[in-house]
């Protein structure tokens, strides 16, 4: 049953002609209100995941719930369709359970606040924001157990409830929620921050309605959505063919021994619509790597990628949704059946973007980028320090941006919007650790005429005994290169104990005990290369060796031979490049995935130090 919206004023909004200048001003004011939401959040939140890294996403939607500005939004519709209650002035909705909002949020850690904005008794807009909570209880610190078998192991689950009902705060309910967390102080501050952000945006919307008129505001949001619809319609017609293209990529493993998991998507245009069909995607996993993908959310991802790849000038919002049809098979990795575990969904979420890139660029290799999404590597570290105080860190790492059609990929940067690293000095002040190394890993970016960005080699020295958890991907399959570019290096994690032993640790593992003085080398993936590496300027390769971004050995990938004095050995380079050029096998595919899955499996232990994952479905989980 859909939500019932109560309005005390039943007058319809009048359609008004909004002049282009006013429309521009309103668009900018909305965009600015959105930026203000971000600012409010990071200023008042307390968990490092939000205040330092920006793991939170705002939106402002029209009265029907269509996102006008924002990103990672487009979920109000899903909520409205499945919420059985009423929405009234003074209400504010709070939720975190993916299964009771059609995947509006995709794991329990993401707390979502929704605020209907009323004016004169009528609903004029929605503001909403969700943010990742560092701990919501459950079986492990950080609340993202990789091996959980159902959502019931993944911390407190909040169905859509009214945190405010007609303006009255539900303090008792919040007490119950906070009581589940290992870090109630962070959760309380972060929840307040989410609420404050929504209120700030609501205030701006109210001011805009006052300044321009409610009818004008309603008409302007319609016009902004229509503007996007027009632009995307044109873009779809000119960029998406009727002949289907498909693309397949993998999640390396599920943390309980199985992998890789296939995600496959076919795309074509039919009657002016784009069809995106995930038929052929592997069934859901027995662990928490499932990603409950809301169809509208995927439409939004698709739209943003289309715009970024083909025409970055187009304004982005939800206006184009009826031009896209997304089909996800029930019971698959992307639409798991309740109560399948969901906490570790970040890997599939990241992979979705590599798949989009691979789909959209296939027909237009000049727009194609290499692969870059490992996922979003996590490190969790928790324990009691010498004074008996509980400490708990949740940190997101970054790797290499892939080579692009116009240049190299940046080293050690984030593919996620708005994310920043945690300053190492902040880590050292507030957590018992020292960061002994924080550098780009040379040669980890795929070779190409435009090099993939290098991953990061970060070395933690733990100063208190505690428990760590590592969640990463792209350790088994390669971040692929394109148009002649080589794949980037895979991710790896090495523990160096104080007794001198060294051990490769799995990329998805909870509950690793560490002692004071243990070192963890947390090495992330490199981006895929773009274009023929033999076409890269040899002097640039030599310079990057001096910069510590490429090694003398790595230069050979570019066919560049370095003399003892560090300069390019021109004769040897020409000779090597000629030999390498002759050995290149022509391929119809613009992609270079590295070895096939069977070969990866065969060589896995030797190359990665870890046993190969078992084919999902081959034995009972």
């Amino acid at each position, binding site marked *: 049953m859909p939500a019932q919206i109560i309005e005390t004023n039943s007058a319809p909004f009048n359609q008004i002609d909004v002049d282009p200048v006013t429309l521009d*001003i309103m668009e*900018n*004011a909305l965009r*600015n209100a959105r930026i203000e939401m971000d600012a*409010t959040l*990071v*200023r*008042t*939140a*307390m968990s490092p995941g939000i*205040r*330092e890294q920006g793991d939170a996403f705002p939106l402002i939607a029209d009265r029907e719930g269509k996102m006008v500005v924002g*990103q*990672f939004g487009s979920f109000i519709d899903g909520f409205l369709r499945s919420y059985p209650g009423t929405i009234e002035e003074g209400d504010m909705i709070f939720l975190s359970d993916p299964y009771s909002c059609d995947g509006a949020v995709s794991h329990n850690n993401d707390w979502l606040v929704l605020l209907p904005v009323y004016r004169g008794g009528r609903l004029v807009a929605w503001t909403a924001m969700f943010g990742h909570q560092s701990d919501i209880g459950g079986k492990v610190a950080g609340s993202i157990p990789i091996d959980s078998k159902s959502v019931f192991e993944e911390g407190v689950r909040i169905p859509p409830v009214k945190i405010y009902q007609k303006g009255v705060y539900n303090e008792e309910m919040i007490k119950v929620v906070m009581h589940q967390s290992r870090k109630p*102080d*962070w959760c*309380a*501050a972060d929840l*307040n921050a989410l*609420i*404050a952000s929504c209120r*700030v945006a609501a205030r701006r919307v109210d001011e805009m309605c006052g*300044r321009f008129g409610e009818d004008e505001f309603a008409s302007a949001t319609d016009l902004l959505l229509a503007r996007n619809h027009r632009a995307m319609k044109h873009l779809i017609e000119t960029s998406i063919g009727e002949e289907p293209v498909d693309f397949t990529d993998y999640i390396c493993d599920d943390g309980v021994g199985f992998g890789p998991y296939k995600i496959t998507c076919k795309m074509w245009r039919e009657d002016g619509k784009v069809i995106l069909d995930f038929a052929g995607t592997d069934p859901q996993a027995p662990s928490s790597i499932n990603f409950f993908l809301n169809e509208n959310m995927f439409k939004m*991802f698709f739209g*943003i990628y289309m715009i*970024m790849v083909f025409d*970055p000038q187009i304004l982005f919002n939800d206006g184009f949704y009826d031009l896209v049809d997304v089909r996800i098979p029930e019971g698959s990795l992307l639409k798991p059946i309740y109560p399948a575990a969901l906490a570790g969904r970040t890997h599939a979420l990241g992979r979705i973007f590599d798949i989009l890139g691979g789909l959209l660029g296939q027909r237009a290799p000049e727009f194609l*980028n290499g692969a870059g999404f490992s996922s979003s590597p996590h490190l969790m570290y928790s324990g009691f320090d010498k004074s008996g105080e509980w400490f708990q860190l949740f940190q997101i790492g*970054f790797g290499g*941006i892939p080579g692009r059609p*116009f240049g190299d*990929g*940046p*080293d*050690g*940067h*984030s*593919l996620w*919007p*708005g*994310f*920043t*690293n945690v*300053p*190492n*000095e*902040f880590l*050292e*002040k507030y957590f018992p650790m*020292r*960061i002994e*190394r*924080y*550098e*780009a890993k040379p040669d980890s970016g795929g070779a190409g005429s435009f090099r993939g*960005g290098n991953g990061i080699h970060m070395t933690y020295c733990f100063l208190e005994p505690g428990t760590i958890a590592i969640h990463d991907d792209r350790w088994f399959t390669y971040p692929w290169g394109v148009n002649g570019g080589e794949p980037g290096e895979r991710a790896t994690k090495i523990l160096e104990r104080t007794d001198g032993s060294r051990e490769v640790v799995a990329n998805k593992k909870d509950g690793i005990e560490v002692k004071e003085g243990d070192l963890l080398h947390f090495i992330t993936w490199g981006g895929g290369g773009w274009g023929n590496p033999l076409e890269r300027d040899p002097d640039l390769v030599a*310079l990057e060796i*001096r*910069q510590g*971004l490429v090694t003398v050995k790595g230069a050979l990938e570019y066919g560049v031979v370095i003399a003892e004095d560090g300069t390019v050995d021109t004769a040897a380079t020409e000779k090597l490049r000629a030999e390498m050029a002759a050995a290149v096998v022509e391929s119809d595919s613009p992609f270079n995935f590295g070895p096939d899955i069977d070969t990866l499996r065969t060589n896995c232990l030797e190359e990665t130090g870890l046993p190969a994952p078992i084919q999902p479905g081959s034995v009972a989980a």
Partner: protein
Amino acid sequence: MGYRLGVDVGGTFTDLLLIDETSGQTFRDKVPSTPNDPSQAVINGARGLCERQAITSSEIDLFLHGTTVATNAVLEKKIARVGLVVTEGHRHIMQIARSLVPGGLAAWIIWPKPEPMAPLECTIEAPERMDAKGETVRELDKDVMRARLEKLKSEENIEALTICLMNSYVSGAHEQAVAEICAEVFPDIPVSMSSDILPEMQEYERALTTVANSAVRPTVARYIGNLERELVDWGTTAKLNLLRSDGGLMSAEKSSNAPVNLLMSGPAGGVAGAVWVAKNAGIGNVLTLDMGGTSTDVALIENGSARLQRETSVGDLNVRASSIDVKTVGAGGGSIAFVPELTKALRVGPESAGAVPGPVAYDKGGELPTVTDANVVLGYLPESLLGGSFKLDREGAQKAVQTIADALGIGLMEAAAGIVDIVNENMFGALRLVSVQQGYDPRDFALMGFGGAGPLHANAMGKLMNSWPVIIPPSPGVLCAYGDATTRQRVETQRSFNEQVQNTNDADLSVYLDSLGAQVKAELEAEGVEPEAIELLYDVDMRYAGQAFEIPLSVTPDSLSIANIISRFDTEHERLFTFNLDETPHEIVNVRAVALGKASDVAPPQLAKGDGDPGQAKLRDHQLFMDGKIQDAVIYERAKLDAGDIVPGPAIVTEMDSTTLVHSGCEALVDDNGNLMINRAASNPEGAN
């Protein structure tokens, strides 16, 4: 009491303003800038001005100076090659930065990879380690450090050196030890330590800010050195002060060592001047358009004060130093127009002909058509500038603009109008950044045009933005110098306090504040400010423990009450963010003391009341090209206009340092202080304002 001399160096002109501190009387001049050694124009201009007014050099007490030397070095990438010493294991600190890709989801697809300001090949590692409490984990290995510095010296030709080590915000001891070795290995190049420049947590921001300081330091130090030498030669004992990005003044010595605080010095002068004019004109909300030869700066003044920010941005560079929130675009009178072969589109700037060779019309060797040349062709700039001492080459300008017309296959006038339209559009974009995109409606603001070219373009910008009236202050070309001369000396110091309120008390905090106050007061006294003229201000930054954001609250040490600070914090927090955290303790993060010198009481000039008819100021009839056709216009001499006169457009109002264009359909009212207030004319079909 003697004189204050305000001098502002722009890319094209150097503006001078002399103020008699007793009478408030002002004298001004404008001379071409000397980009190779900007101090030449400063000194020669100052000498010329004083000689003409029969003022001796010893009568000048204060020499107040805004300069774009540091800014231009960054914008034109004429920066020093900076060597960087970082803690071992952190060599790629500038390469990785904060890992942030600006923009929304998938913006990485279109974001170009930036190059670090300190080249990676010039970045070396110091074998040392300090922890977050400022205690040594590993002592600096001096021999290895020396060897690495020697190697850097033999391989790379660096011109400045930066040291930024982990946790040096707590203790600069290791940086100091490295600096000592640097001084031995590199005796001739300046060394900047991050613990000096920005003793704040966050290694990347501290490194970047310190690298930026190093990058401009040789240029700025050379410049200030030259200036001081020439001032001594001239025989003045005036204290040299430079205008900082935040609108305060600082001493020459500080400026040489910490030039990162000067990055927005030039634009700050203009905004400070605009604040002064707007205050006198009784207008609170103003958008400023400071258009010079090379670039245009825009800012927003709300209720009489310019918006300040905790960072300074120049081009793509973003450092942690306070500044007035100014946006700059590479659009100025000297911006060069061109038609790329491939697209056949008309482009204007950001390349500029600058002061040398300058626009073709200046007849100083320039051959490429500029915005100024287009203005000459259209008839907006009459033949003589600067009160007749400077003749324009109209034929040359026509010839140059004709190349654009030919490339586009259109007429000469259309090409000239196109150049002006495009440069206006570029400035329109910048004005939107500070207004619409900050949630301000430009229709609630007046627009003030100044700088050499601002008055020529301001009326057009007012039409585009719908910001009225368009204000052209008297002597708009030297408004920056007004700002330099009317603002105050400022010394600021900030220290970390980092105590939760339950662990401190009123007396301790008060004592701490007093010691900071005494420090800044002494510094200002050392700069020659009389003790009784010094105003002391104190701030504490408070937050809920665990938050990343602090709210600054002003306090007075005498009547200090932490309880009172907390209650004000809660009120402010609730106003800003709609909630308070009752369970969370309050933390005092930083404390700050600011010492301000005496403000100059410069009164605005008062014009005689006229009869509303500007006839007495008419120089001659004129023709210009506007709205697609040649139109009759009148040229007026600004100095002869009286208060209350109304100048109907199209018209040109000339004065020594600037030319104002009044569009057809608009009219300019002369106010009591001599400002031109341009509004839409009552007869305009779009209506008066």
